[in-house]
């Protein structure tokens, strides 16, 4: 494994061409560190859903990651429209996405529920009109 490692990716709203590139890079970093495949998959899925949320709903944002021997933590911070009700957003199927987002296969209201399902902890803080901060953590070793 090795020592702690951290980094940051910058995200641009509506840049659908590069949407997923940050999560893909993070996945590559985890692969190089020899993280088990199932943990890589859970992290990649959560990161990708969160990255798509920034691309869809925000003007700009960033994805920060920190990998230690015991856990992977990822924080996404954006300058976006914010989430009026996090409780509603956590409900499977609830979505405010416009049609063109749905046509791309996203915005079906599974994003946040899916992030929660894939991670060991999830914290979402949002201020309408200012932005959203989403933090998730995935354990690398059981029971720590």
């Amino acid at each position: 494994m090795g020592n702690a490692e951290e980094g940051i990716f910058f995200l641009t709203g509506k840049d659908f061409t590069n949407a997923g590139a940050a999560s893909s890079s993070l996945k590559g970093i985890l692969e190089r560190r020899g993280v088990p495949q199932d943990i890589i998959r859970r992290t990649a899925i959560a990161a990708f859903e969160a990255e798509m949320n920034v691309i869809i709903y925000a003007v700009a944002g960033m994805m920060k990651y920190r990998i230690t021997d015991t856990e992977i933590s990822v924080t996404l911070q954006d300058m976006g429209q914010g989430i009026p009700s996090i409780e509603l957003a956590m409900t499977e199927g609830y979505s405010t996405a416009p049609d063109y987002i749905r046509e791309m296969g996203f915005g079906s209201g599974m994003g946040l529920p899916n992030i929660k399902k894939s991670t060991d902890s999830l914290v979402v803080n949002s201020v309408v009109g200012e932005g959203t901060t989403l933090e998730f953590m995935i354990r690398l070793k059981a029971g720590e």
Partner: protein
Amino acid sequence: MNLSEIRNILNAIVLTDEDALQKTVACAYCADLMSDVLSFSVTNSLLITGLTNTQVIRTAEMAAIEMIVFIQNKRPDIQTIKLAEEKHIPLLVTAFSMFDACGRLYEKGLRSLARVNVVHRA
């Protein structure tokens, strides 16, 4: 089931490098909603979809999906094909509809291994 068999069953065209004909999948999943794929698919699987944008390739990459079949002759653009080749995810195109493509593969023994919680109600 390997890529070559899938190609034959679906009369499909392979859009990416043909050197992956022996690549195999254990199961299949179909959806047009990428969040459904991220939520319910399993690794080592085939994705059957009607969406052809780059997000499909990203979704497959994150969910560790092995290959993708596009239905009803829907062809992705060159950017999408290039990304798939970069990620070593073979792409196929079939003229069959989603229903018929799934039916044909099922008939030949390919199954879903999605984690299903079936609740029977009286």
